[in-house]
């Protein structure tokens, strides 16, 4: 079995990938733009790649997603950028220019690699995770933590609001979604 399909050994809480994907589709997302991330690989990216209702565009570097999503938004097409938090950090300038300064509806789903899902991102054992929410706050980007099943309900309203009011949004995936 590939490493991305293994569940976290000590995690008793299941976050179903199928529920997240259903919420993505219900939000009108047509395109998923992605660089693989081990947190979301097995539970989201693999099933999305097989899903005929979603068009997956595999990119080489995460900031490409921000430009592609912008071009799609001019054509009234909705896109989700599915990346790891490291890719978010690498894409800050593109997000600054395109998503924030131009007010584009760039919707990002960001896997928090190395995060302990039993604590908050601000208290994460991983430095890179601890700085994500403060950076999003500094940039004025709304963000939502998707850490357990009840959080999945946040996805659709967040994406709908981003497109209705033309602003970016970040959905932080706090634990590895299951492939079920």
């Amino acid at each position, binding site marked *: 079995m590939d490493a991305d399909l293994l569940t976290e050994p000590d995690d008793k809480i299941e976050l179903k990938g199928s529920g997240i994907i259903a919420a993505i589709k219900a939000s009108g997302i047509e395109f998923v733009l992605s660089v693989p991330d081990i947190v979301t690989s097995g539970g989201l990216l693999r099933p999305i790649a097989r899903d005929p209702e979603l068009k997956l565009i595999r990119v080489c570097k995460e*900031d490409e997603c921000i430009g592609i999503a912008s*071009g*799609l938004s*001019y*054509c009234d097409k909705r896109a989700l950028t599915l990346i790891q938090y490291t890719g978010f950090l690498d894409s800050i300038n593109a997000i600054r220019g395109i998503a924030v300064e131009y007010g584009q509806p760039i919707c990002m789903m960001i896997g928090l690699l190395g995060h302990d899902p039993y604590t908050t991102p601000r208290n994460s054992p991983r430095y890179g995770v601890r700085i994500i929410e403060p950076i999003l706050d500094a940039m004025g980007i709304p963000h939502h933590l998707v850490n357990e099943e009840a959080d999945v309900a946040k996805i659709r309203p967040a994406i709908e609001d981003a497109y209705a009011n033309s602003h970016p949004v970040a959905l932080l995936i706090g634990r590895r979604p299951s492939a079920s």
Partner: protein
Amino acid sequence: MMKRDKCFRVLARHVTDEVVVSTYSSAVDWLNLGERTLNYFSVGAMGLDSSHALGLALGRPNKRIICLQGDGSLLMNLGCLVTIAAAAPRNLVHIVVQNGTYEANGGHPIPNTEVEFAAMARAAGYAHVHDFSQLANFEQQAAHVLKQEGPVFATLHVERTKPLTYDYPNLYDPARRKALKAALQSS
């Protein structure tokens, strides 16, 4: 070696309802040829012009998208060649203007002025690849290049120009973005 503004004059003769994505020096020279609603200047981050163009091409597969990208910009986003080739939009024409400098940032040379972008695009898997150094040749081929089934790539080898004036507030005017979006969503 050619001049960028002359190359764009050639190009403009064949451009009708295509969306033209351009930034920095290319945007200045392109805009000097006339206002068009279907100009896309608000790229937001250097290097992402080609990625915006890919998004437009995927979003409007029946509309031709032309990207006029500088060599410095492409170097900041070389992976886009592989992404675009894999996505394979038939309606995208990716033109790279190679003058060997970061013209809008002081005219400093790019790390290797002899880099062969056409070879890179060919290796990445573009459907058609061109390399132009002579204006007469480009004039002869331009219409053909713009009509080929994409993704199409072309390098234009041009001279450095005298310093341009960059009117960024005008190029990035939100009204341009609004008008472009309205035009794309209504046509």
